[in-house]
């Protein structure tokens, strides 16, 4: 099999497995499969791994990692070897697994909804119909604790980030940035085009699993009115 990835040091206690600079479901599935494999079969010294769109950072203790193989002189070489072997042996079935789709209610009243509609010469209802028409993949969770990067968005509503970010975006806001769509887990500064808000708390620090959405999940947005929003409101 052709090697379609690279393993390079992020620093002396982390290796980065990269499958290129792409947003692609099959590539992302590989990243998440490797992430899950490492949790299931960690090497000695493994600390944790962090998946992104097309790369996985693997954090380790270089002293423990080297102790398990006396023939290898460098901890990084040991980890690289382990990751290359793991990638050769990753179960292919995992890549085909269909996720259960998580429904996310949205009240489409965002401050930038009109801007998105104008940019694409659509009505508000058309923007909503297009945004709710697709099942999205959670490619990664990053930036802020619990912020899901999802996609890909239909090009008829794909919209670049705002030129100057807002200083405060309320928690639960649903936004678009290019071909990505996301939900703000906490109130924070942000530059995504806001099209609505969900009444669901997608991040709750009081829960033992604080995030509603995990890397690799499938989600679908559905439109709700003001009354349903209030009934469902978890904030």
């Amino acid at each position: 099999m052709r090697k379609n990835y690279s393993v390079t040091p992020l620093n002396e206690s982390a290796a980065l497995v990269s499958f290129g600079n792409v947003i692609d479901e099959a590539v992302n599935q590989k990243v998440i499969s490797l992430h899950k494999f490492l949790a299931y079969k960690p090497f000695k010294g493994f600390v944790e791994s962090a998946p992104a769109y097309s790369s996985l950072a693997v954090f380790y203790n270089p002293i423990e990692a080297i102790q398990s193989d006396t023939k290898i002189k460098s901890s990084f070489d040991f980890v690289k070897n382990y990751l290359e072997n793991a990638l050769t042996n990753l179960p292919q079935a995992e890549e085909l697994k269909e996720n259960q789709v998580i429904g996310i209610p949205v009240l489409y009243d965002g401050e930038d909804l009109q801007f998105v509609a104008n940019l694409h010469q659509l009505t508000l209802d058309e923007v909503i119909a297009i945004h709710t028409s697709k099942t999205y993949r959670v490619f990664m969770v990053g930036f802020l604790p619990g912020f899901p990067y999802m996609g890909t968005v239909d090009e008829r509503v794909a919209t670049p980030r705002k030129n100057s970010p807002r200083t405060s975006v309320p928690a639960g806001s649903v936004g678009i940035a290019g071909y990505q769509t996301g939900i703000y887990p906490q109130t924070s500064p942000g530059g995504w085009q806001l099209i609505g808000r969900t009444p669901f708390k997608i991040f709750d620090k009081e829960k033992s699993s604080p995030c509603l959405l995990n890397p690799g999940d499938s989600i679908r947005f559905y439109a709700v009115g003001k009354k349903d929003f209030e009934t469902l409101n978890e904030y």
Partner: protein
Amino acid sequence: MSIEVIKPGLLSNLVASGRAGFRYLGVGPCGAMDSFAMKTSNYLVGNNGDATTLEMNFPAPELLFQEDQFVSLTGRGFQVYINENTFSSGKPLLVKKGEVMRFEKVEAGSRAYLAVHGGWKAQEWLGSFTTHLGVKAGGYMGRVLQKGDVLQTNGLFQQINETKALSWGISKNELDKIYFPSNEIRIISCVETDLLSKESKESLLTVEFRITGQSNRMGFRLEGKKLVLNESIELISSPVDFGTIQLLPDGNLIILMADHQTTGGYPRVASVIKPDLPKLAQMSPNDKINFRLISLDEAEGEFQLREKLLTELKQACLTQYKNYFKV
């Protein structure tokens, strides 16, 4: 009751070993900016290196001891005042009930760590006691200290006769290994180093960079020469770490610090080696940095040396502690 915060100081917060295992949810480790100082402060009072300590900056807090305590202060730049008596950092201190402890800046440095025998009581969040200021979780109610807060300790301590410093400590010789030469920060190549132009690669290693005022627990912004890539590139988000040096769109560098985001989209042009992060963490705005490039093999060697030094210090402190208190 243990100690009461009379003056909160700037950004005083409880830190412990970082949170591991939640980067995949966007939750980074956080933890101490200067982990060497945190660990050694704990060793001095007979703790494990990862017990919760109080991280302090300037302006520093003022603390009223409501009980006899066995504490220690490490880090750079701080001197302890109890009444009119001064105590240098790096030695364990017995402090009587009713004493007020304050701190003054006496040398270069910006952070100190106050450890107490048994560790400070803190709230646990996702397996760690360290404060996550962004999420407002862990540590002391997930926030920096305020006037009137009362910090409790996990351990009980025997009664003591007088406030005094004990004989053992971290020697200047050991500290120099960590914090000198003070402007030199060692780096290794990172994922996007080769995207830098040839000239910028040279500049990174020859130009003196200055830490700007826009620096905090999340990152230190630098100013020096502006660096450029061979060609402009739009990177999709990818993981970063404490010590990752990113090239911002305006050509300046940022070094990610303890409270960094888990992912980023800027080119990662170098990584500060882990053993030099404590030195970096003690720098302040306007301090100058010269980067020195070393190989990955050398970095792994330095990492091992640092762990060895910490193990030795831990053993030495523990022996002294046991001898003194006859435990």
